């Protein structure tokens, strides 16, 4: 009992040590960009300024994610102008408002700079309500007249583009899903804190590259090592003692939810609520890969890297001794143990490798859509959907499920508004449970 308690404290301290250094340094070096990745309005509930100084932050971006500088924004209340501002290089303008209440935020379309000429917001005026102690962010998304981000392209090209971005997203999910699925397979733990491993990869990489000043690739490698070490500590300090005590699986799942909540808000505490980007990779333009398919060179590199990593993991699982042992433990821990496999060692390896893969998934995701304290949590349910779809506990199923979920999420935006894209995947998750709960590659006996 006492040992477990000291161990738990040690775990908490270890997390603090990893991230706390970032605290002062991030505050000193970085101006956070407000959180508004794609969403129309967003409250920064937890990080909103508590005393006075209420503000509405307006962001102006083009549909393909470029920030628009120099657009004039005005805030009115009941027809009376309250504040005006011009967007900065990050495409955002902070507009102070005197008191909580309802405001109209208007974008002056004629003021748009040359780079955004001919583009229009869905509506030039957004109404919003500012609550006590909470800043508001509103986002204007500019697209060509007539809606649709690529109005010029034909429907077939749109499908191709969606397939490309879907594969890109699916690979990110796959990197996160393998670890989750193997940890479930070998220990039975449904690890809700897996999302925090994803976030940790991006945050530590950001820390190493921006604050410690390492080159990006080195920083990313160091970030993955940190994730692996953290995964090892996770198992060694928390989960292994719990398994030894015979703690039930449901109890362990609730513990992982507590851990996830704790870590997520620790990240917020240290990192604050803004969305940041890795320096040097922010404004990369797309290149034509196939007719109608536009991807950034960066995306091609990360997709290639993801595929290589996934293939290596798959080969390791099939060919190496340890990989075979891992699959044996996932299949039947008791039998594996009886045939002389060191189950604890296998589980530790799975934790280290799974955490490092989750970290890689976080780095890649950070390159695609920016880094925030809850980036992992936002995709956690999609990772769960992928793992369930592929069959809980199977590594290959997780990859197949991830690609399907990624493609589904992107392709569904052809039919439903993109703000609801994640919703489709969650509905699918529930439908799978109805039709084939064991997943594509799972076996029925597992679901008991």
């Amino acid at each position, binding site marked *: 009992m006492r040992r477990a308690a000291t161990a738990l404290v040690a775990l908490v301290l270890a997390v603090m040590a990893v991230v706390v250094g970032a605290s002062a340094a991030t505050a000193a070096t970085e101006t956070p960009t407000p959180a508004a990745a794609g969403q129309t309005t967003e409250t920064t509930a937890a990080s909103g300024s508590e005393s006075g100084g209420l503000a509405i932050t307006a962001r102006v971006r083009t549909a393909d994610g470029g920030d628009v500088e120099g657009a004039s924004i005005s805030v009115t209340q009941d027809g009376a102008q309250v504040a005006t501002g011009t967007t900065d290089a990050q495409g955002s303008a902070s507009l102070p408002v005197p008191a909580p209440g309802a405001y109209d935020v208007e974008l002056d379309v004629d003021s748009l700079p040359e780079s955004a000429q001919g583009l229009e917001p869905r509506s030039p005026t957004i109404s919003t309500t500012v609550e006590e102690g909470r800043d508001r962010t509103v986002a204007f998304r500019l697209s060509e007249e007539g809606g649709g981000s690529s109005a010029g392209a034909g429907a077939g090209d749109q499908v191709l583009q969606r397939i490309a971005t879907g594969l890109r997203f699916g690979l990110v999910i796959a990197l996160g899903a393998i670890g989750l699925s193997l940890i479930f397979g070998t220990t039975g733990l449904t690890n809700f804190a897996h999302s925090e491993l994803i976030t940790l990869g991006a945050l530590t990489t950001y820390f190493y590259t921006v604050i410690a000043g390492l080159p990006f690739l080195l920083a990313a490698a160091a970030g993955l090592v940190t994730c692996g070490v953290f995964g090892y500590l996770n198992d060694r300090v928390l989960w292994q003692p719990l398994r030894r005590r015979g*703690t039930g699986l449901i109890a362990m799942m609730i513990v992982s939810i507590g851990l996830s909540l704790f870590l997520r808000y620790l990240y917020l505490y240290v990192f604050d609520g803004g969305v940041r980007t890795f320096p040097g990779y922010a404004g990369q333009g797309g290149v034509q890969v196939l007719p109608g398919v536009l991807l950034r060179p960066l995306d091609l590199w990360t997709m290639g890297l993801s595929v290589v990593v996934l293939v290596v993991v798959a080969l390791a699982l099939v060919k190496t001794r340890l990989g075979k042992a891992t699959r044996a433990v996932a299949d039947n821990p008791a039998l594996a143990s009886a045939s002389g496999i060191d189950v604890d060692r296998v589980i530790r390896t799975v934790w280290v490798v799974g955490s490092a893969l989750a970290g890689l998934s976080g780095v890649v995701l950070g390159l695609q859509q920016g880094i925030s304290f809850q980036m992992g949590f936002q995709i956690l349910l999609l990772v769960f959907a992928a793992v369930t779809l592929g069959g809980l506990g199977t590594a290959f199923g997780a990859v197949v499920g991830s690609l399907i979920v990624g493609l589904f999420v992107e392709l569904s935006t052809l039919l439903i508004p993109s703000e*609801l894209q994640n919703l489709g995947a969650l509905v699918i998750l529930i439908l799978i449970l109805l039709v084939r709960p064991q997943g594509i590659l799972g076996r029925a006996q597992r679901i008991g």
Partner: protein
Amino acid sequence: MDISILNNALAAAIGLDTVIYALAALGLNIQFGYAGLLNFGQAAFVAIGSYGIATIVSIAGLPFVVGILVGLAGSVVFALLLGIPTLRLRADYLAIATIAASEVVRLLARSNSLGAYTGGSNGLSGFAEGFYDLNPFPQGTYGFGPFAANERNTWILLVGWLLVALVALATWAIMRSPWGRVLKGIREDEDAVRALGKNVYAYKMQALVLGGLVGTLGGFVFSLGRAAVQPDNYATAFTFFTYTVLLLGGAARVLGPVVGAAIFWVVLSLTDGVLRGAIQEGWIPAALMSSSQVGQVRFMLVGLALMLLMIYRPQGIFGDRRELALDGR
């Protein structure tokens, strides 16, 4: 450091948050404490109650009683939709499916596409007057010391605590009936109960619906007490807080959730007050913690409490360890 911190903490013991979380946890207690169902979508049941009233009154313009009926009906339908695919499966599937379903409800509520009915991410307000028109208390201050409240708060707190008392009484009554004993039997050993010829699936479904309805009552108090609904109040954190409340007081105890909610909010209010006071007095250097970070410490504390409770005292303060068969697969 002044006396107002203590006053606020004492007031939190009977405050609106305590009522809301007590009701949500009472519902969860029926599902998780007695039937062993891992419902991680309690936030959605609460949201359905809140939006039931808000949408019916402020968008459709009907009286709030209709909103209450719509909320209750919506919650039953939601429970059935959720239960049909998942209740036959192992516990952790139910957990994943319910958490996904509750996010679906929240994302729908905050989407622009349904903004005409839900107010999008800004939510709705101005629907609570029908309820406050029924207020029998004339204008003035009621109660004493830290428990003083104006006539509006007195009215909503009175209604809220009446609901808590009724639900607790009903829980006590049904859990000692044969129906309740079957439910506990399912929690302990599903196969044994099935072997006795009981329809386990139907019992689980009834528990899910019943617990959801109680959560929906909490949603009514939530929306009427705040006189506003905002979709992000119904995020997964709400459910996790509810679990902490339930495990703190003791699952499978009739009054566990109520006591748990009171302790939970008193402790949060105390730590909030003490930390803010300490920052104001300069006892905590500004580089270490700013006053906006106090709210984040609250979440970290809850996460840590949830872990430690589950590891060291899963039965909570008043629970009985034998009542909580969390070790079964």
